């Protein structure tokens, strides 16, 4: 009995080892296992003990490298991992996959219907542009939240929290009577999606939102989701172009169809589809965001350093108009993103190297630039007083500044070997609620605070 279980254990190990090879898939390993067992049985008949027979059988099968190379030569397509809708009918996980697919299709369809629903009550895109601007986040992200709620099978309590936050978002977006061209409405339109995106995070974590690892997973998810969404959007652009061209060629005007149906419905559905793709691809292909991070960290570090040098040489002050404020906020977001995605893909055991120095240089130069910006903003605010836009920009700047400053400090300690890398990861995941709190504050508190300006 023990010998038998030992053999099963050895075969199981061998399977795991084979399965990690490229070009060899589940059914191949099943087939090879059958082969291995056949040979073990034959060898055992000649009087060998089972463990000896196992060793010889594995040895006869030849080196795993060579074997998998031969498989890969025949199945070169497998090196390009295929994913969508090509489920192997033999795979036992197929019903689960189909269920996921159905949930995805359902939520995507719901999103597409949802964005056209207000039309039934007479709210068209043209007439009620501000209605759509305020609620875009809800239309796009509520189906995504539903999707993750269903996928993760969240508990009733989490469901209640998610639903409550959605309602809160809907109230925040619609209860204040804001002018269509007020600053607050623009801020609300920008910040509601941010706030709701973190609600997506709650759903994504399936209620385990206190776990640092789940939060990191959500950060990874966000990066990949963004990349897939952009890819889908580009495909959508091509589709739109062809639709427009072909219908125009046969003398029909497709503009209404495109702007009223194709683009809005496609965009909100793509939000769900991109999320599904990330989930499905998770274990299949390498994540893209960390790769892009590797490429762009040095380039951004160089650019920022160049800006600092230029400021030092010319002693030109930074011009803080509204667009500039947004630009610098975005710059900090990008730097933060570069830090986050390199953290997300980092092997914790790896020693610090050149790349860490580069990252530190990037963070420090971003901080220096940000200090200059902060000085300029404060100057303007003391001169002209607070407006919703400036306050929001200032708040975001400060939040990102604090994060990056502490990140830089931690980085220095890590590079000098005083702290472990996980501290930095911990800091970033712990900081997520701050963004959420700020985004909600801008949506809910800012309009009354600034008298709906």
């Amino acid at each position, binding site marked *: 009995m023990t010998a038998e279980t030992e053999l099963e254990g050895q075969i199981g190990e061998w399977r795991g080892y084979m399965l990690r090879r490229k070009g060899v898939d589940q059914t191949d390993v099943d087939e090879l296992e*059958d082969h291995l067992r056949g040979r073990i049985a034959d060898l055992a008949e000649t009087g060998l003990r089972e463990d000896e027979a196992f060793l010889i059988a594995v040895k006869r099968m030849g080196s795993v490298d060579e074997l998998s190379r031969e498989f890969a*030569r025949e199945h070169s397509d497998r090196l390009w991992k295929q994913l969508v809708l090509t489920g192997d009918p033999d795979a036992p996980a197929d019903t689960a996959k189909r269920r996921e697919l159905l949930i995805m299709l359902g939520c995507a369809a719901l999103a597409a219907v949802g964005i056209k629903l207000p039309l039934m009550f007479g709210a068209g895109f043209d007439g009620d542009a501000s209605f759509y601007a305020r609620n875009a986040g809800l239309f796009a992200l509520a189906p995504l939240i539903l999707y993750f709620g269903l996928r993760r099978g969240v508990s009733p309590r989490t469901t209640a929290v998610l639903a409550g936050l959605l309602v809160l978002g809907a109230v925040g977006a619609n209860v204040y009577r804001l002018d269509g061209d007020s600053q607050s409405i623009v801020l609300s339109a920008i910040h509601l999606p941010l706030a709701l995106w973190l609600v997506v995070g709650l759903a994504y974590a399936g209620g385990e939102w206190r776990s640092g690892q789940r939060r990191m997973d959500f950060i990874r998810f966000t990066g990949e989701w963004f990349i897939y969404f952009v890819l889908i959007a580009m495909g959508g652009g091509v589709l739109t172009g062809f639709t427009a061209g072909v219908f125009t060629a046969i003398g029909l005007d497709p503009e209404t169809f495109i702007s009223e149906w194709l683009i809005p419905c496609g965009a909100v559905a793509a939000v769900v589809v991109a999320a599904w793709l990330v989930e499905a691809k998770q274990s299949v292909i390498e994540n893209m965001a960390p790769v892009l991070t590797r490429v762009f960290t040095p380039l951004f570090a160089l650019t920022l350093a160049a800006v600092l040098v230029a400021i030092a040489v010319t002693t030109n002050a930074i011009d803080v108009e509204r667009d500039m404020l947004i630009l610098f906020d975005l710059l900090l977001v990008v730097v933060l993103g570069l830090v986050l995605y390199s953290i997300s893909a980092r092997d914790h055991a790896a020693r610090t190297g050149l790349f860490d120095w580069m990252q530190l240089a990037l963070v420090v130069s971003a901080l220096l630039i940000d200090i200059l910006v902060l000085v300029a903003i404060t100057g303007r605010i003391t001169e002209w007083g607070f407006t919703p836009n400036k306050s929001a920009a200032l708040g975001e700047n400060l939040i990102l500044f604090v994060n990056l400053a502490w990140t830089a400090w931690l980085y220095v300690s890590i590079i000098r070997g005083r702290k472990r890398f996980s501290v930095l990861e911990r800091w970033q995941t712990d900081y997520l609620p701050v963004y959420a709190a700020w985004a909600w504050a801008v949506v809910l508190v800012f309009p009354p605070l600034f008298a709906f300006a």
Partner: protein
Amino acid sequence: MRIAKDLVAASSTPLVLGILAEEESYGYAILKEISERSGGRLEWTEGLLYPLLHRLERTGYIESTWRTPEGGRRRKYYAITDEGRRELAEQRRQWAAVSEALQDIWKATRSATPIAAPVLEG
């Protein structure tokens, strides 16, 4: 005696098709059969056999089914298709032509240099 790699590769398809033409079979049994039929001189590796089986399946010469024999484990059986039989017939013709030509040449060569005779063994 080891058979050269090129020759092993060239003969692999007709061998597998020939074995499957008799009756359907599975990987390990095919490997054993080839070893037996060649008196142990053709020792195929798994890295040769399985990719070959998969390629033949892809080209439609053979087809596979997973079956679970009673009280046994799931196993993948291969059977030859009609197209495979046609291919086998075609390969047979070609091999016969090659072999005939070789026989002719061996005969001629033997009369010239009898030392070469041992090559014919097997």
